[in-house]
């Protein structure tokens, strides 16, 4: 412990040099002063610490963010103004051309539409199912509750690629199990789960739902368990049925969690990549681009067409879309919390 204290003191004398390795001989000299300061530090608690220390604690995040977050962002903003050759030495400045091309690019708008469609089919049904699952798991009479709760997370840690391969087989047009099951249920004709736009969105949404359902159920479960039981007791005394208890006690209490799950789902939804990629087998998201998503389109332009500048422009557009959606989310959340305060 004394080592830690001494380094603390050295740094206090020279706050500008906090990363410099210290010299043990120097630290020995002002021993009395050090003791005094230590006492003072104990008296005033954490307040006595040099405030510059805080920067050292948050530094790891900011250094990482600078290298892996900010630097690539700035770099991609720069290359968005170029006709960028990925391996070349000389780059050609193209001004706003990438952006003006993008606005009139129907493939971009297709990708945007697909992304939102897949988001809708994966988020909304999933949320309803997750709340349902959570209420089942909350039931105290359920046997082996811990086992079920643990097993719910298994899909979440399965590799996306493995999921996509298995689901790709399930959704096979000619010999897939899903079509086989539907035929037994009386479906007259096989559905082409890959070539048709809407079925392909549903197939992809199913993969996403399968993977994230358990995770979201646990989040709902946690917030359900936090609902005080007296609310249910008084509801029961008032003669509320199970459904009424769910509708008027559980659901309102889950409002914040629903918003949270919705926001996380939206962020994930705008990044859907591996599922459509594996389902289609290439970057175009199906032969008619029927399930090309925004990130897939970005990747295709960068790595298939070698248009890095254009891909960077797409990235900037995605950022703008995310900002807009976050703003909407923020507005909704604020409205919900202000409703609660009334």
């Amino acid at each position, binding site marked *: 412990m004394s080592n830690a204290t001494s380094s603390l003191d050295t740094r206090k004398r020279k706050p500008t040099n906090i990363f410099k390795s210290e010299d043990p001989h120097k630290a020995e000299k002002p021993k009395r002063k050090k003791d005094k300061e230590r006492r003072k530090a104990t008296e005033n608690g954490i307040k006595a610490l040099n405030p510059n220390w805080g920067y050292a604690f948050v530094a790891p995040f900011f250094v990482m963010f600078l290298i892996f977050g900010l630097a690539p962002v700035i770099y991609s903003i720069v290359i968005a103004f170029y*006709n960028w050759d*990925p*391996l*070349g030495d000389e780059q050609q400045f193209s001004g706003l051309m990438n952006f003006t*091309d993008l606005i009139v*690019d129907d*493939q971009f708008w297709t990708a945007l539409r697909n992304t939102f469609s897949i988001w809708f089919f994966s988020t909304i049904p999933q949320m309803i199912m997750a709340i349902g699952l959570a209420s089942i798991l909350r039931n105290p009479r359920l046997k082996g509750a*811990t*086992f079920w*709760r*643990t*097993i719910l*997370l*298994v899909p979440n*840690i399965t590799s996306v690629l493995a999921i996509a391969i298995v689901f*790709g*087989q399930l959704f*096979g*047009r*000619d*010999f*897939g199990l899903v*079509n086989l099951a539907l*035929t037994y249920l009386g479906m*007259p*004709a*096989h559905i*082409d789960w890959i*070539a048709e736009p809407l079925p392909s969105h549903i197939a992809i949404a199913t993969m996403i739902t399968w993977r994230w359902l358990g995770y979201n159920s646990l989040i709902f479960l946690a917030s359900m368990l936090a609902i005080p039981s007296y609310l249910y007791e008084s509801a029961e005394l008032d003669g509320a049925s199970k459904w009424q208890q769910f509708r008027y006690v559980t659901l309102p209490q889950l409002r914040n969690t629903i918003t949270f799950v919705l926001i996380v789902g939206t962020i994930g939804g705008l990044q859907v990549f591996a599922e459509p990629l594996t389902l289609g*087998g*290439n*970057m*175009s998201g199906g*032969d*008619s*681009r029927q399930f090309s998503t925004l990130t897939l389109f970005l990747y295709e*332009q960068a*790595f*298939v*067409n*070698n*248009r890095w500048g254009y891909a960077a422009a797409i990235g900037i557009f995605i950022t703008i879309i995310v900002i807009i959606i976050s703003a909407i989310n923020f507005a909704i959340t604020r409205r919900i919390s202000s409703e609660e305060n009334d």
Partner: protein
Amino acid sequence: MNRKNVIRSAMALLTVAGLTMAGITPAHAVTKTQVTIWSYGNVIEPWGETEYERLHPDIDLKIKKNSMDAHHQSLITAFKANTTPDIAAIEVSYSGFFRSYPKYFTNLNGLVNESDYLDWRWNQGVGNDGKVIGIPTDVGGLQVAYRKDLFKAHGLPTDRAAVGALWPTWQKFIDTGKLYVSKLTPAEKTSCKVKKVCFGFIDNAGTMYPAILNQGAKKYYETNGTLIYKTNANVKTAFTTTATALNSGISTRINQFTSDWNAGMMKGVFATVLAPAWMLDYIKQQAASTSGKWDVADLPGGGGNLGGSQLTVPTAAKHPQEAKDFIKWYLSPAIQLEIFKRYGLFPSASSLYNNTALTGYKDKFFSNAPIGQIYVTGARQLRPIFEGKNQRAIDNYFGQALAKVAVGKMTAAAAWSDAIAQIDKNIKN
């Protein structure tokens, strides 16, 4: 949570952790030199790896496989970041791209005897500045693999010479297909409407496009790099012939390398596959139960080629000498012959083309067809063809347009102008 529950969930977690970690292999001995190889598909066959490691106990070959496109895409970023492997495989459709950047590759001039290899395959590994950046692996010589039993059942000859004589041209191939589908049983015909399992003559007529295209003298680029995809009559012919085939009802709607394809191969949903030499091994593995029912006939319109790669040593390689040693061994005529016998990868070493071990090679799975002889004859008919910088991307756009014809979303003419518009917009050089 009581203690019992804690133990239970801990065990569940451990099981889960165990499942995820099962794929990790134990660390190798530290004294060995690790030569890293990035490849895709079956470029480096397992026998080649184990045999080389047996002969060179001090070398540990670390092979990282990826899907074909993803492999080349990660190579681009690796070049940019100097994190390249010691050996990188480059497929011919990407050769035009990487040949434009020879500075990222070690010069392999003089490593092997150039005259041992097919000249046009050799040239696919020569950089635009004349530097040798890659040594050719196999040639994807293309022929028609067909099901004898299905041919017989649908009133066609089964003998490979007679079958080859059915289709000297692609138009005759389509006509033969029409004859075949006209003899489908009523059950097979209604299956397409009801179950959407469409029985057909060929697995996917879209595969005709690259086959016809590669039989021409030029594709999308002049040898100086000028784009000619709009004006080259060869491209238009390949496109319209393929579209005609797609509209003629001879094709199932199955895409290659999907689970439906594997299942269809076994169940006899289609009777022919345009098969490059490297695909024969895949057919054998996927449809093992159909052994002896297959045979191989000549491709319409002369020999064809699909695929093949070069092995390169990037300048950022950590062990360039060991990498060169491996390439020299693995791509030597003797080892190429061995790989052909074991896996059917057709050698690019033309010095073997008179070797009876190659020309006399037969396979029971394919009814003892003289596969070696058939593919040698095909490879000899091939002409060199220039692969341009964005060859692969342009291929994709034409492929997507043809797929729209296949599902009846567009007419051939509309799909053609759609593809041209897309390429105009997306391909700048």
